[in-house]
């Protein structure tokens, strides 16, 4: 008798799985498990940075593309470093990242083709209201970084090889400083988590403007330095080279890149606002 109860339990588990599946979509069970929704659309994997996905821009950009072409864009949000690695391994079809030197190297080494610059925004230095390093209003990024290091004011670094992290390390290098010591702390986490940590520790941090706007109401940190040329944050899009990885969806990647530089997509980028502020500026309008 008791074994019957166990059999019932196993059946309940199977039924739960199947019912849950029918609720998710009308596609077959195996289709869903394989990541298909059963429609005749091809999958296009876009590896991008957390800042673009968290900004909500992609949710505005992608539907118009999916409507026009028979592709379904699957967004995998990782840092720029990992996105490029996905490209090198052929685990993504198209990349949208922000680290120009690394992108150029990626293309030079034959991993990517058809790189296009699509939009830009900028970085800002955030700091606590009492501004212990006294850099508020400095437009010179190198000067600001040097002062933070001299004063040994707590600075939070992403430390995760992301585009923002690469930019930050580039500024330190240009300033001729090798940041180390108790005041320099690496989180190894995303932009949002790192801002939260900086906020809790009353520290300085380099952030992209978009993430700052999204977090502005939740933190006490404010912008202490902005406007330097070095803060320019350029977003590029690259198709993964199908010569290296024949399995990638190269046609889809090309179509997506063409779409991103089209007037339609560029206008969506221009008109996308958060809290009344534009987050990204189109480059092809």
């Amino acid at each position: 008798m008791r074994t019957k109860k166990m059999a019932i339990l196993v059946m309940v588990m199977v039924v739960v799985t199947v019912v849950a599946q029918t609720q998710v979509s009308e596609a077959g069970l195996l289709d869903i498990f394989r990541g298909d929704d059963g429609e005749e659309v091809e999958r296009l994997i876009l590896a991008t940075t957390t800042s673009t996905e968290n900004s909500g821009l992609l949710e505005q950009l992608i539907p118009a593309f999916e409507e026009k072409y028979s592709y379904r864009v699957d967004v995998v949000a990782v840092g720029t470093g990992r996105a490029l690695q996905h490209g090198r391994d052929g685990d993504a079809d198209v990349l949208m990242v922000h680290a120009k030197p690394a992108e150029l190297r990626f293309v030079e080494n034959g991993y990517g083709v058809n790189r296009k610059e699509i939009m830009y925004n900028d970085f800002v230095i955030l700091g606590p209201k009492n501004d212990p390093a006294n850099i508020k209003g400095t437009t010179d990024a190198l000067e600001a970084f040097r002062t933070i290091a001299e004063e040994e004011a707590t600075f939070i670094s992403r430390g995760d090889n992301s585009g923002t992290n690469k930019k930050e390390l580039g500024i330190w290098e240009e300033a001729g400083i090798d940041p180390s010591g108790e005041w320099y702390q690496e989180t190894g986490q995303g932009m949002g988590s790192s801002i939260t940590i900086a906020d809790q520790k009353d520290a300085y941090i380099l952030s992209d403007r978009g993430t700052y706007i999204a977090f502005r109401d939740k933190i006490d940190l404010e912008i202490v330095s902005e406007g330097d040329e070095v803060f320019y944050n350029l977003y590029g899009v690259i198709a993964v080279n199908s010569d290296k990885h024949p399995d990638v969806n190269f046609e889809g990647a090309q179509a997506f890149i063409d779409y991103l530089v089209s007037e339609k997509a560029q206008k969506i980028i221009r008109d996308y606002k958060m809290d009344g502020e534009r987050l990204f500026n189109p480059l092809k309008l």
Partner: protein
Amino acid sequence: MDYILEGLSAALRLLFNLNPEIREIALLSIMVSTSSTLIASLLGIPLGFVVAHYDFQGKGIIITILNTLLSLPTVVVGLLVFSFISNQGPLGNLELLYTPLGIIMGQTILALPIVVTLSLNVIKESEDKIIDTALSLGASKKQAMILLFKEVRFGILGAVITAYGRVIGEVGLSMMVGGNIRRVTRTLTTAIAMETSKGEFGFGLALGIILMTIALAINLVLHYFQEVRT
């Protein structure tokens, strides 16, 4: 404090409005975790029985290894599965990366040592006593075995419940292997991690409350089966 209140009220709103995207995410979580627990149980319970029942060389080492695997971090299993199913990996052409099937595969690996070790322990504990008693009372070997299964099934169910708890609550593996792709591989735990990174703490907490509610419901069902006798 604000986050907690905000989270509670957001959770209630999400639950009652049945936001279709949240419902999809929750159902995918249930589907993936139930599948992996089921597979791990079908493999793990017989395996636990074999290890408990038969004496063979190296048995102690196998048990130690199984016990060690219990503390395997989810992100390590994620990394392992990732490198196997990545395009560069040996299973690359199966195209399992960023699919629910990939997550199920990884979660099965997470759940398996739990099912095996815990069922092994309950079988080992009652085996000698029950089989000896049954045999001495004149039962056949087969009858003694059936009796053993009847005695240990509640303990084994406990093992399954524990495994389920591990997989439905894990985030490292689902994030790495699934990629948190909207409408495809986004589960409750990866959605919570994402909302947290976006600074939407209240919403993240709300999803957490939904996850706990699901876990509670599932545990109530399993406990019904476990304690139906008492």
